[in-house]
């Protein structure tokens, strides 16, 4: 068992044994080694299935909004997850005093598809260390340098350390390079208008409207999403270009100033659609125009949710 997992288990046990929290959201093992599953521990005796490694690909903050605000929830937070939790606290989706953030400085999430595309799907075992991941494919061990199989969002991560965590289970890591963040946005921006539209169409028109991106996103918690509004209908539910374009553009815009670049949307997408080139661009705009990054504290309102009379621009959205 990895050192982190030992510490994590002890911490979860403490939270539950001492009745500090009602439940802890973490991960558990599943039959397939590649798919640890989000788990909701309420009993300290249930922890034998606890799992933690770089294949834990979901942003657990997405589950917070399901529980009443008086539920005392412990939750694993890596860098992006902690910022999602903070952003949810700012948006009054849970009370800070009823949360316990178990921080893990994050070395990045492994993109299982990058491995599968190079080996094949029949992987029977997985192990990792800080520099390398190793899988067993058809009885053969195949190794990859970690960087080659990290998820794209993690390659571009600037803030790997949890913000406002109640405890850190590991030493903080160096911050990422902001210039690297720009790479996906930059390669999109350097295209001309037609190329950009072609890329957008190529990605968006593969969409099957399953809304896995929405459900995986902690910030997509609207009780009624605009695509589900039926009286009257606000958007086409077809997989026609009109329907898929509208979905991808409006989804991205609704996340302006709220997205924490975790990439959970892309990891959830069954059609491998790229989406973060849009949200990363919007994040960059928010940083340039308003010096705002979502989730860097649990007080500052996102610019589009706040109003003040001294606003330098004379408009109200």
């Amino acid at each position, binding site marked *: 068992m990895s050192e982190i997992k030992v510490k994590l288990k002890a911490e979860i046990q403490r939270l539950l044994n001492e009745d500090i929290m009602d439940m802890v959201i973490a991960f558990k093992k*599943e*039959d*397939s080694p590649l*798919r*640890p*599953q*989000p*788990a*909701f521990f309420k009993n300290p005796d249930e922890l034998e299935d606890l799992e933690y490694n770089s294949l834990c*690909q*979901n942003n657990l903050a*997405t*589950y917070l909004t399901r529980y009443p605000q008086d539920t005392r929830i412990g939750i694993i937070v890596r860098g992006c997850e902690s910022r999602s939790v903070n952003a949810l606290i700012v948006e009054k989706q849970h009370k800070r005093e009823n949360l316990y953030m178990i921080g893990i400085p994050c070395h990045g999430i492994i993109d299982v*598809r990058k491995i599968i*595309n190079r080996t*094949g*799907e*029949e992987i*029977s075992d997985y192990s990792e260390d800080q520099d390398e991941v190793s899988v067993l494919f058809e009885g053969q061990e195949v190794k990859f340098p970690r960087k080659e199989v990290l998820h794209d969002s993690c390659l571009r991560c600037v803030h790997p350390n949890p913000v406002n965590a109640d405890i850190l289970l590991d030493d903080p890591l160096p911050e990422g390079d902001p210039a690297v963040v720009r790479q996906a946005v930059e390669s999109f921006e350097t295209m001309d208008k037609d190329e950009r539209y072609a890329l957008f169409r190529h990605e968006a028109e*593969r969409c*099957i*409207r*399953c*809304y*896995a991106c*929405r*459900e*995986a996103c902690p910030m997509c918690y609207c009780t009624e999403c605009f695509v*589900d509004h*039926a*009286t009257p*209908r606000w958007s*086409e*539910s*077809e*997989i*026609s270009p009109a*329907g898929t374009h509208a979905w991808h553009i409006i989804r991205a815009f609704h996340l302006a100033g709220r997205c924490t670049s975790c990439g959970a949307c892309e*990891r*959830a997408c*069954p*059609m*491998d659609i790229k989406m973060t080139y849009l949200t990363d661009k919007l994040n960059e705009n928010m940083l340039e125009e308003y010096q705002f990054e979502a989730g860097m504290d649990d007080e500052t309102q996102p610019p589009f949710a706040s109003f003040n009379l001294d606003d330098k621009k004379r408009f109200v959205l």
Partner: protein
Amino acid sequence: MMYILEKKNIDQTLTDWSAKYKVFAPQKVENFSQFLPVEPSSELALDNPHNTRYPPKALFLPQSEALLKYNRQLNKLEELIIAPKPRIIFGIRPCDASAVSLLDTVFHTGEYDDPYWIARRDATILIGMGCKEPCQTCFCTTVGYGPFNHDGLDGLITEVDETYFIEVFTEKGKQLFLDLPVASEDQQRIVKSIQTNAEEKMQPAFDTTNLKQKLDQNFESDYWSKISESCLGCGVCTFLCPTCFCFDIVDEVQRNERVRNWDTCMFKIYSQEASGHNPRPTRVERTRQRIMHKFSYWIDQIGKIGCTGCGRCIRYCPVGLDIRAMLKTASTLESEGINAR
């Protein structure tokens, strides 16, 4: 009858068929595969051990399809009845083909005949690709099918080294292969042993004995909230499922079209009633519906499980939910509802 087609001749064969038929085969798209019409530039993915990511049910029940056009000023309706060119779907996996034959019991019942489904079915020859090497996520034998099951198929390929041996089951299938040499009895024996081997490799994934009764009797059990706790409530499992067929019909008034779109019981809006009441208000009831439909209600309706064990819902679930694990747990439930709330 069993015919012999050398693998090296496959491109030519597909091209020859293209003169008379629209030929679909699994092809590489991005990093996955999908059934698309075969063109000279197509990159076939026939050797991929997995079925295609996007299910071939879409070739019979497209995800979005205009059913009729209307003109409100002229008070006119135009039904969009389709007359598809004869089609061959080549290389469909047996799980997906048996799913198509299951869906016949929905869209072609005699009482309810869907003209769009029937037109496409009648125009289509289905040639399957048997599965020599079942994948980790496959469980077709558990639910009553198999890696060489031929429900819904006109012909079925068994790959032996560089050769495709093709069994045909219908006249429609036979007419495609009349020019090909016929397999000897020895060859047929080899094919049969490969088929049996593949079936024997597959261990039961869960116990189906009395599974329906257990599910029925535990309708109110907290089993459902346990298995649905991590479910995101997206539509991946149902949209990629080869047997899920639910649809919603909407008027796209800006285009004067009435459109049928796939829908899914996993969405909250699916069961939202006009009054505002929702009989399946949370993911618990919605997960229950998905499992009960496949493993109880289909059995009530046609006496068969409504799942063919393709494994897509397992492979692509964003949170790693595994329907086999859910049903394994269900099979341990007490029949008399002792676990019920």
